[in-house]
């Protein structure tokens, strides 16, 4: 009489049953951690950086400035050379 295990070993593959069992335990273990959600440490980290006064405040200022088009302010003298 051949059991699942013998079949599996003969082919070098795991039976569906063994695969399911491993998968279930893996998922259960994983889900247990996932259920802990986002620790304060990480939500605070993202909040801090999001809040203007964060790590990239300087860079944000530069980006804002470029978006509002500083060129017109800085390079006004160019008007002299304008061909309009």
């Amino acid at each position: 009489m051949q059991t699942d295990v013998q079949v599996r070993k003969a082919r070098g593959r795991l039976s569906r049953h063994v695969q399911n069992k491993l998968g279930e335990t893996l998922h259960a273990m994983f889900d247990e951690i996932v259920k802990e959600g986002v620790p304060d440490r990480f939500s605070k980290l993202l909040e801090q950086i999001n809040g203007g006064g964060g790590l990239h405040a300087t860079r944000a200022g530069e980006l804002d400035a470029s978006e509002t088009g500083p060129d017109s302010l800085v390079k006004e003298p160019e008007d002299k050379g304008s061909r309009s």
Partner: protein
Amino acid sequence: MTLQASVREAMLAAVPSLRAFAISLSGNVDRADDLVQETLLRAMANINSFQPGTNMSAWLFTILRNLFRSEYRKRRREVEDVDGSYADSLKSHPEQHSRVEFEEFRVALAKLPPDQREALLLVGASGFSYEEAAAICDCAVGTIKSRVNRARTRLSELLSIDSADEFGPDHTTRAILTAGGRG
């Protein structure tokens, strides 16, 4: 504002599974949380290289996986902590699975070579396709498939899972788990 709200939300949403991946990969909660923190910092510093509309979770997993790999190479000679720091730190555990069972599983997982462990965790627990896992690990899809197969085979040997009743919940709780599980 330096980080778009949608980007920030996507990062936050990815943290729980990113953390589960890091803990399962490293076997140590403190190390894992440091890895997650470093991953988030790097992600934010390089947010310009993230393409909106693509999978934020896969991007973060890739960063974390690479960080873990480079750290692993440095620490290779150190003895891995597989004696309970993980289990002790868990706030709760489902009644369907005993702590002993998880602990056995985790110890077995820690015995796998890292490439097999990460492949199994990405495909078997994190919900990535073989193709996504291959992209994260920067290898061929066939390589991921064979790593996952070898990981499963090795785990089943380490845990001696041969019959229906030796390991894991009985049929009733298994049905509950399946009904309530992911996927």
